[in-house]
């Protein structure tokens, strides 16, 4: 397969929590958003990143693009370290990296500047990067609109004139305007109606087929992750619990959290009702993660060992990594 397009090594990101004092504010703790995330994304493929709230998946997406600066760890894009390039590189290097990596956001109603026309929104990358001569802008914008399934005359309109699904398409068109090789899609369909989601999911897959774009697909909706990903990583409280090719992780999960997570998803088929594993308690807060294996307070299989020591990621099957002391049980 060769060198992966994107490689993340041991990403750590904490967000400080403050308490307001009289004059100054005092730090009282940290949100352990990311506590050592490592993964890779191959060329032309999609990595699905799943987890519940507080697991750090959105932070991962932002750190990869350097929209949030990590505390430690590295992100390599085509062999170059992202943060290094974006802070210390030449202007040309910086612009090139920004163009190659783009993001599509969750909220279709907030991610487009309400005071700009669609034409301005999609052509903004041209303004910033100058990689397209001005005389070609119109053609490019129109062709991008067509590519995402919209019409040319939509270019002169304003975001509020479009539905959620259409706005998401516009966001995608904007991301494509820089000719990226890699796109982070952060919950791109969660705010959309059910029947519209399929439109966007299909579009993402089509773009991958036709243009070879890699995706980091972040979502809490496991069913849609299965649709679009080739590999899946399951996160919990800032750590990666499991990583495997898509079919394997859904059909043969090896981590008790993954198993519980999968069993909790309702399937639109009344003849196939899975036996549910109901996890007790709440999704814990990332401010004070539990000791040892972070999942131990809720895990039906937890032992003393799990309380004391954090499991390492181990490759139990080819290409299938698990962080659990007792993962062999589930083989």
């Amino acid at each position, binding site marked *: 397969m060769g060198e992966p397009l994107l490689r993340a090594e041991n990403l750590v990101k904490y967000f400080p929590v403050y308490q307001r004092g009289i004059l100054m504010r005092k730090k009282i703790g940290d949100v352990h958003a990311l506590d050592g995330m490592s993964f890779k994304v191959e060329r032309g493929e999609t990595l699905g990143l799943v987890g519940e709230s507080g697991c750090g998946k959105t932070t991962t997406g932002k750190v990869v693009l350097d929209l949030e600066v990590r505390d430690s760890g590295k992100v390599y894009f085509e062999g170059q370290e992202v943060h290094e390039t974006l802070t210390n590189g030449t202007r040309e290097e910086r612009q090139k990296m920004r163009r190659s990596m783009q993001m599509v956001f969750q909220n279709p109603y907030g991610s487009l500047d309400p005071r700009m026309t669609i034409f301005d929104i999609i052509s903004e990358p041209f303004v910033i990067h100058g990689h397209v001569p001005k005389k070609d802008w119109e053609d490019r914008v129109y062709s991008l609109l067509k590519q995402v399934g919209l019409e040319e005359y939509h270019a002169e309109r304003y975001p509020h004139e479009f539905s959620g699904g259409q706005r998401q398409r516009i966001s995608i068109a904007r991301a494509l305007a820089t000719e990226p090789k890699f796109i982070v899609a952060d919950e791109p369909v969660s705010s959309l109606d059910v029947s519209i989601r399929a439109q966007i999911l299909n579009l993402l897959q089509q773009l991958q087929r036709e243009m070879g774009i890699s995706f980091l697909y972040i979502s809490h909706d496991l069913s849609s992750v299965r649709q679009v990903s080739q590999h899946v990583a399951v996160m919990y409280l800032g750590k990666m619990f499991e990583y495997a090719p*898509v079919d394997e992780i859904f059909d043969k999960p090896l981590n008790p959290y993954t198993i519980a997570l999968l069993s909790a998803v309702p*399937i639109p088929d009344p003849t196939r*009702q899975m036996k549910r594993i109901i996890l007790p308690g709440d999704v814990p807060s990332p401010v004070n993660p539990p000791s040892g294996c972070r999942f131990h307070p809720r895990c039906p299989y937890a032992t003393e060992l799990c309380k004391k020591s954090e499991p390492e990621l181990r490759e139990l099957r080819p290409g299938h990594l698990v962080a659990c002391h007792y993962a062999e049980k589930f083989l």
Partner: protein
Amino acid sequence: MATAWQTRSILGYESETVGELLRVEGLKTYFFTEAGVVKAVDGVSFVVNEGEPLGLVGESGSGKTVTMLSVMGIVPRPGRIVGGRVFFRGEEITSKSSEELRKFRGRKIGYVSQDPNSSLDPLFTIGSQLMEVVREHFQVSKSEAFERGVKLLEKVGIPEPETRMKSYPHELSGGMRQRVAIARALAGEPELLVADEPTTNLDVTIQAQVLDLLKALERELRMSLILITHDMGLIAEMTERVVVLYAGMVSEIAKTREIFASPRHPYTAALLASVPRLDRKTSLTPIPGNIPNLISPPSGCRFHPRCKYAREICVQQVPPLESIGGGREVSCLRWKEITLQEAA
């Protein structure tokens, strides 16, 4: 009205050994806004039977929430019911005064809304909010109300209920808050619980807890459930009958198994074909187009602009909700001619 009911039983409507709890007939609720009249619910009819959990499924603009708000008489302005009738255990509630309706709400029908953050008042303790409902419907002392509140919290699985009575909503997690919201809906000991997207804002594992709770409550309290959702997975798991709504009108009514195995309305089939599944990768067929504008909806069948089986007649005539045997109802003019793909 009575005739229609008799006709249905002649056509083989499932004969009830259980009672009919709720009947909605031709309900119309419009919103009179500056921009125009939004026909949010435009002729919705269905029946809820005791002990048979019903799903009200649809996307945004389908009218599923407004329908239930109309049933309970709490349609927000500028909306109001402009037509149709609603019966609860044979008693017409659309003709009740607002005072009577107020007593009715909570005591006969309980409502859990989508957002656990906004449905509980952040200024009052959980205990006081529960007790408020209890004392509204029952003549009991404060201490008795407190006891009942504690029992309610126990029922919904909140640990240390006595202490929790003194907590404020923001001290609880989202899942806990939703449980409290359910407890509050149950405080009036209603016969029917309406859960409006109760798990949409919750994490998957917490969703499982809440769904489990709802099922347990149905059993223990012998309570009937109406589940409003857009999630076909929830429908499959939690309901026995389904009403599919689109743009303010009923597309199809059938038993859950039947809807999935052999949908009769093109929208139902298209919806099923566009939903990804957890247990395998499928090729998704999205529904082209967008949800229609409810101020000026498409003529004839509201789904026709997006329907691949649409013909001239679909543009001209509004399809009536027909009974097609076996308790099933469809509103499609061409249902006999078209063979829809099996959803699985």
